[in-house]
């Protein structure tokens, strides 16, 4: 028996274990990438369609039948074909973009400070948790008074909503940094700007983007009610307008657009988190 042979050094080689291997799992990626998402989307459409069917068959609610999938997709097609959908999207995205930009410009340095200095963390804890829990929309009257334009007021509301997740995700990332990384960098001659640029920012970049992902979600939610304010552009305005003109198919189409753009923004953030992540799975 070959497994019993003993070599010159007196070391007996062990028999090689054979692992049972199943046929390559080509089904699994297909399932996860296509079939499961399709099931989810199909389920949502079914619930929507069923809701529309109930409304259409109820004498009291008949007027709202345009909320159903059929009229909604028709309205969406028309809005895309006529190009009417792009203006509100562009206005809304630019507001969210500026709001996020402010939130990042304020939140990232604030988060680094809070994460780095325990004293700063302790001083800011109560006031920041207090401010964080106030709905951004509660600032609406103040924002309208404080800012000269409606646009600026909306951007302010978005920034107020988005700044907290970015601040706290950044702070959390900084707190997790291995203290030895600072020690080694100092030993290698790093000054403060180099420490920030070469050590702190790369170390927390994925935490920053995780914070931005949360912030995008909050900002996109705050956007619509904020656009009910005096502006005459954007997706929030479009919804309000459709309601006033009783165009429920159009209203539902805009809701659909809001959801799809939100989904895409989140997907972009997930990509960015993956790209800036240095943690490798082993």
């Amino acid at each position, binding site marked *: 028996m070959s497994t019993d042979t003993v070599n010159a050094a007196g070391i007996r080689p062990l028999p090689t274990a054979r692992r049972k291997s199943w046929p390559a799992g080509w089904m699994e990626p297909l399932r996860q990438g296509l079939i499961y998402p399709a099931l989810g989307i199909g389920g949502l459409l079914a619930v929507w369609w069923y809701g529309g069917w109930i409304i259409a068959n109820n004498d009291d609610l008949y007027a709202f039948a345009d909320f159903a999938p059929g009229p909604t997709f028709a309205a969406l097609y028309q809005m895309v074909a006529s190009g009417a959908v792009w203006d509100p999207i562009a206005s809304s995205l630019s507001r969210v973009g500026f709001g996020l930009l402010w939130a990042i410009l304020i939140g990232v340095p604030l988060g680094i400070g809070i994460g780095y200095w325990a004293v700063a963390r302790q001083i800011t804890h109560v006031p920041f948790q207090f401010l964080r829990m106030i709905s951004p929309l509660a600032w609406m009257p103040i924002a309208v008074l404080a800012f000269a334009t409606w646009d600026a007021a909306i951007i302010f509301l978005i920034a107020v909503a988005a700044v907290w997740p970015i601040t706290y995700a950044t702070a959390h990332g900084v707190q997790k940094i291995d203290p030895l990384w600072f020690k080694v960098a*100092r030993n*290698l001659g790093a000054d403060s700007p180099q420490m920030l640029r070469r050590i702190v920012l790369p170390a927390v970049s994925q935490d920053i983007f995780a914070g931005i992902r949360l912030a995008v979600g909050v900002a996109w939610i705050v956007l619509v009610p904020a656009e009910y304010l005096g502006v005459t552009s954007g997706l929030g305005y479009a919804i309000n307008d459709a309601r006033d003109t009783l165009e429920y198919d159009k209203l539902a189409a805009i809701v659909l657009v809001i959801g799809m753009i939100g989904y895409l923004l989140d997907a972009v953030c997930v990509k960015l988190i993956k790209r800036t992540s*240095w943690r490798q799975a082993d």
Partner: protein
Amino acid sequence: MGIERDSSKAIGEGTPFMPAFISIDYITHHYKGQSKPTLEAVEATIEAGQTVALIGRSGCGKSTLLHMLAGLLQPSEGCVRINGRQITRPSPKWNMMFQKPSLYPWMSVRENTALGLLFQGQKQLIAERVDPLLETVGLRELADTNVQRLSGGQQQRVALARSLATQPELLLLDEPFSALDAFTRTALQDQVTGIVKDKGLTMVMVTHDIEEAVAMADRVLIMSANPGRIENEMSVDLTYPRNRSAPEFVALREQLMKHFGETVELPQRNSKTEPRIKAA
């Protein structure tokens, strides 16, 4: 008398390279909130090019002393001088390697190694210095690999190359091999000694491992605890590379072991308390 910024300029191109002569002048150190000093009236001189091992029980302040040599910690009283100048802050000229390799995981092997030169604004030296150094530590092929893919021994080799890239006068080792497996540890001990002797560097290392001290050092300083003092020293007059099973080697090891009495301390891995310093 502070140390001038020109010390960092001295690693410029073509600067004659000078190993450090260290004098430790009556260092006493108190950590805040402790009644007894961690170190008391510690005094020693270390010749240029010498390899010195600091050994002693936990809490004898050997790691604290090493942090002072690196300028990462200031003594309460007394001072450390390197080539006559008082050490008041860390510098790439006296470089410390820690128990953990502490590499930056978002960088490749080459980027980690080049970091000291980058911080010094000496980008032009990176190409010329880093690859030969990686060759020396046997990682030339892995230069573009992310450091997370490396084994513990390979990571410590990157840390070594990173410490050497700024051409230090003095290399400080704080138990850098204690987390490695026995084979890798022995190989790295010999490799580091070879490089340090080849370049004529001064080296000071802290270790729990008596065999490591005898294998690497010219001189072993034995510290006692409460308060921390250098209580004894032993010179190791063996040629490099050292044969660990040679009778003279074994005799020295036994002698050192005996010095510690019955309670020879086993290496305490991962339970080491780092000196408290601010990472500012």
